[in-house]
């Protein structure tokens, strides 16, 4: 939706009569230029990051080529590096985290925005936002001290007794696993979903709700069919935010994922993620190929983010088109 508004021509002096400088002085061009510069700066910074990633990973890229994405070995001693288990771990833990956090977060956001009294809603949200400041390492510690033992003693045996025949719940469980990492990640990203979605829901104009209720819809019908579609781009934005955090999370993940570069069907098996291995090994890597391989993993993560974002946007665009045809 473009936000430029056409102003009747008679409201402004003829363009030819206004030189660039006077328009500048009037503030119009200046405002445009300043904001354009900021937007350009963002573009430049991201390009710079991408450039550095490409430059620093050139050694590894030239040695391994595209095979890097499909190989499963990670051997720093021999200089054999492959990204596949890390890609798998990153994608699976992030998707698992989203599957848990989105329903939970949206449900809470809806309740806080539409149904809870404003004071409580504001106070709760304030505290929830504060949680975004808790450092990753503390989530990791809580994961290790509280979540993992709880999973080992109670939760996973319960899941296994019901779903144990499914391949995703097969195998021995040592506490640290893809499953544990997915859960910790979901807890870490839920504040983003709740906070942003709630704000977005709150900013849907009241008239929309009133119109729907006036037509006889119940509160839930109003929320589901009127408010949420209105807020959908904002909600998607919060999900992207959450996904981005999940993909890049290091400390908390490395403490509960098991740090084993392998690909197994079972969620209960230990795994590894890109951000975790880079964090674990970067400071100790001294030979150039090793460093270059780690940077290449960073580049791969950049690529994974690119692809996932692209897929999500295509998804949005197709649902929007479907909605337009209703």
């Amino acid at each position, binding site marked *: 939706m473009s*936000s430029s508004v056409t*102003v009747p021509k008679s*409201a402004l002096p003829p363009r030819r009569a206004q030189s660039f400088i006077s328009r500048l002085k009037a503030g*119009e061009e200046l*405002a*445009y230029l300043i*904001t354009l*510069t*900021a*937007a350009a*700066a*963002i573009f430049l910074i991201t390009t*710079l*990051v991408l450039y*550095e*990633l490409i430059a620093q990973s050139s050694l590894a890229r030239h040695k391994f080529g595209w095979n890097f994405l499909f190989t499963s070995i990670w051997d720093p001693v021999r200089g054999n590096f492959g990204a596949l288990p890390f890609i798998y771990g990153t994608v699976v833990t992030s998707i698992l985290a989203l599957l848990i956090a989105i329903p*939970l*977060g949206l*449900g809470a956001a*809806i*309740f806080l925005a539409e*149904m*809870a009294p404003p004071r409580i809603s504001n106070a709760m949200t304030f*505290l929830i*936002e*504060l949680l*975004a*400041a*808790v*450092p*990753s*390492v*503390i989530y990791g510690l809580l994961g290790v001290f509280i979540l993992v033992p709880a999973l080992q003693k109670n939760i996973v045996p319960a899941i296994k007794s019901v779903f144990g025949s499914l391949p995703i719940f097969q195998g021995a469980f040592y506490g640290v696993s893809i499953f544990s990492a997915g859960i910790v990640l979901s807890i870490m990203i*839920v504040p*983003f979903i709740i*906070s*942003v979605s709630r*704000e*977005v829901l709150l*900013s*849907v104009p009241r008239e929309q709700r009133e119109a729907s209720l006036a037509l006889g819809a119940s509160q*839930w019908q109003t*929320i*589901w069919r009127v408010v949420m579609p209105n807020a959908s*781009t*904002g909600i998607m934005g919060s999900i*992207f*935010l959450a996904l*981005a955090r999940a993909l*890049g999370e*290091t*400390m908390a993940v490395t403490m509960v994922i098991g740090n084993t570069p392998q690909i197994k069907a079972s969620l209960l098996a230990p795994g590894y993620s890109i*951000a975790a291995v880079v964090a674990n090994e*970067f*400071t100790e890597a001294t030979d150039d190929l090793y460093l270059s391989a780690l940077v290449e993993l*960073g580049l791969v993560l*950049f690529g994974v*983010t690119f692809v996932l*974002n692209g897929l999500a*946007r295509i998804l949005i665009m197709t649902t929007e088109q479907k909605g337009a045809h209703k």
Partner: protein
Amino acid sequence: MNPNSFLKNLVNYTMFAVTGLCTVIAVGILFFILGYLVYNGGKSLSLSFFTNLPAPVGEIGGGMANAIVGSGKVLLLATLIGIPIGFLGGVYLSEYSNEQIAFTIRYVTDLLNGVPSIVIGIVVYTIVVHPMGHFSTFAGGVALGIMMIPISVRSTEEFLHAVPQSLREAALALGAPKWKSIVTVVIPAAMRGIISGTMLDLARVAGETAPLLFTALGNQFWSPGWNQPSATLPVMIFTYAVAPYDDWHRQAWAAGFVLLTLVLLINITARMALSRGTYVPRG
């Protein structure tokens, strides 16, 4: 009762319960974490924590005064870098750009958001620390500032978008130039959401450890000015939490508590200072 309205009401009440349950679970877990942190951190706090420099193992009375100040400085610089760029970029996206450019910049912003914090640290090491020849508070601020940009852009754009077009048109109809209408009407209308987004942004960045490891490094002593390595709370938490000593573990929890309190204070102060007289669209 009419079967249609029965179903409607049933669904209504059920969803009320379901969303309420979601809230209870989400809020419950989050409160548990907060409470655990506050309890463990609070009981390890003492005045010396705020006034003393870190002490080696075995010596009592060590504190994190330099880390608290260091975090403050780094976050200040990060805000000065990240918020203007993010905010103005968001204004551009919402008010000035056309569809294609907006799509590209949004995509690029999401990409930047997805870069792991450790990679940002490595990149800033290459472009700031290496040329300068040493680690510094400045480099730490740059790294966190870059990380603040994407969330700032997205939240600014999102909430500016939510301002009804009628408001813009009204301002223009009264003869205000476009930029003035944006500054005096549109932005204040979106201010609440923008502040909320900014605080979330700051909170997220305040807890980041990895980028600081390669930029601000750390310091047992005070770090005057901006050009020396500096202690920061997240790095201290990380160092102490993985050490073998119980005393350091306790200090790590205390530091986590202090970090949260720092963010809370900034939150409250900023909201008080900036949100006077904002137009709240909902009654």
